[in-house]
């Protein structure tokens, strides 16, 4: 188990990297150099950072189309990320994946899926393999509240519980699936309450900050690593921008602007900065800008894949 406290410096560096990367996406999106849908994590980054920092290197991550924060928090390559957004052959999947299918096998970050809930059983299957091979590592599966609408989520939970698999489900409950609130879509108790009845120890956490997430995940990971079977952590959060793309959607009339104000007041990028010295913050910020600039340059100077690349990586 990770002991003591989260490394705030590192957490801030990750948070800042994610935030600035996405701000940069917002800045340049209208230039149409990123020709692919983007699902921003802004407002939810700290869940990814707190969780990923609590894991071991050989633990395995499953994410989804809203994966920027997960990927970067896990330590996925920033350069390959940017090049992939640009559709270049120096991207992590040579341009074939784009923002919705981030992958970095160097850090055990599995290819993300854009079909809601679809990678959840894959994560369970990976955990089954870990258990069959008696490996120490655990699988962590990030998913949204919307994923719990899908039957496959419950099927997956059942099997994970039945076989006591080493998997941690992290439900990033931002209250919405696109423009539908959770209550418009779901009856009954909370996702974690339901999960509990499915035999998965589960708990609900209202807007936890980076440090709390780190603690929760460290503890859960510890129990899972000890062979206690799967767990689920449901954490509420808020996405600041539109479901997809770079707009603010609060003028569409379905989300109260006060919700965003509240979320912005809780902003963990600000909060963590406040825990560091101004000099530390400045140093990290500068480093992030330099890394970001280098990554974007890497993306800009990369080549587009040639037409001979079309037929690769498939059996045909």
């Amino acid at each position, binding site marked *: 188990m990770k002991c003591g406290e989260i490394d705030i410096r590192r957490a801030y560096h990750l948070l800042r990297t994610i935030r600035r990367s996405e701000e940069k996406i917002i800045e340049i*999106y*209208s230039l*149409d150099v*990123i*020709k*692919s*849908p*983007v699902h921003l994590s802004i407002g939810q980054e700290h869940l990814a950072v707190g969780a990923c920092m609590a894991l071991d290197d050989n633990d395995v991550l499953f994410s989804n189309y809203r994966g920027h924060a997960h990927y970067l928090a896990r330590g996925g390559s920033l350069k390959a990320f940017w090049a992939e957004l640009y*559709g*270049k052959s120096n*991207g992590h999947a*040579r*341009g*074939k*994946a*784009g*923002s*919705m*299918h981030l992958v970095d096998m160097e850090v055990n970050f599995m290819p993300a*899926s*854009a*079909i*809601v*809930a679809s990678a959840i059983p894959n994560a369970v299957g990976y955990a089954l393999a870990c258990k069959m091979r008696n490996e120490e590592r655990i699988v962590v599966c990030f998913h949204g509240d*919307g*994923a719990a*609408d*899908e*039957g496959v989520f419950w099927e997956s939970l059942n099997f994970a519980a039945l076989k006591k698999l080493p998997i941690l489900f992290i439900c990033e409950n931002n209250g919405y*699936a*696109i*423009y*539908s609130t959770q209550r*418009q*879509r*779901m009856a009954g108790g909370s996702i974690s309450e339901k999960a509990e009845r499915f035999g998965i120890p589960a708990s609900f956490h209202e807007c936890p900050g980076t440090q709390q997430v780190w603690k929760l995940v460290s503890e859960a990971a510890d129990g899972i690593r000890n062979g206690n079977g799967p767990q689920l952590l449901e954490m509420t959060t808020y996405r600041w921008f*539109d479901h*997809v*793309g*770079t*707009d603010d959607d609060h003028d*569409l*009339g*379905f989300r109260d602007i006060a919700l965003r104000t509240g979320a912005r007041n809780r902003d963990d990028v600000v909060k963590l900065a406040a825990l560091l010295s101004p000099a530390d913050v400045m140093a990290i910020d500068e480093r992030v800008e330099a890394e970001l600039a280098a990554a974007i340059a890497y993306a800009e100077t990369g080549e*587009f*894949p*040639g*037409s001979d*690349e*079309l*037929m690769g*990586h*498939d059996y*045909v």
Partner: protein
Amino acid sequence: MLSYGAALLEAIEQEMERDQSVFVMGQGVDDQKGQYGSTLGLHKKFGAARNFDTPIAEDAMTGIAVGAALAGMRPVHVHQRMDFLMLCMNQLVNMAAKYSYMSAGQVSVPMVVRASIGRSWGQGPQHSQAPYPFFMHVPGLKVLAPTTPHDAKGSLIAAIRDDTPVLIVEHRLLYGNQGIVPATEFEIEFGKARILRKGSHVTLVGVSYTVVDCLRAASMLASCGIDAEVIDLLSLAPLDSAAVLESAARTGRLVVVDNSWVTCGAGAELLARLQESPLGEHVRAKRLGYAPVTCPTTRPLEDIFYPSPRSVAVEAMKLCGRDPADLGELAVAREIEEFKGPF
């Protein structure tokens, strides 16, 4: 003049007005975007019970549409992506398609499933598929793929009034296209293709947006003196192979451009029927469609993954014994060029 999206909206409004049993369901149908305008405001006009958002549970929601149809309602179930139908194949293939036959006609399933397909940019592997051949393969389902606003309206009305489950395939780059649409209600005819352009040298057959590719190819070919006939299949099941075979026999050359992969696609079915017919030996034929790989996200690979006016024209030139190098340039289609997302 109405856009394709507005034509669909007009169709559904007229049907909901006419028949209390018609209702709309689907993820986001009552949101600010209203599935490219095609369901916009229906809940305000007809009440929230008749145009409602659903949980992200394609399997059950399709089953629920089937059940409502069994009860005599006429649900129109809207999907943002045809890829998502992979989650409800059981309800479509094992249930909706079979209820009528297996009850010897005691029940029917008058439901409509609308699903968007197609490129724009960067939709990638899981948001770009159009596996309509699956639904052509299985008896008990009908499939329409309207290309024009006119046919969008006529298809939706025909589909709603039909007593079998009907799938409507809608290409997202078509929603903004304008066209003349009769204000009154009308139905397209199942099993009838449309000849959009008469020609004598080669027959180009498209499905949904590839009909636009064919029309543009026909212009390119015209500058080379080749007079192409363009057919919009429109009704995929039942399939109007007669119209295609008749045209191909006349021109002697056939290019079928699928809006999916080629293997076991609509083109395969048409060419097989041609091969079975005595007409086959007089026709030289060729299929086009998606490249036989998973759809890549990056634009340069996307451009060669999908068929295009040029790739269609090139095949037609080859069939006509002409050098494809003679083809002029054609700008990238406006709707593709102008596409800026975010989805």
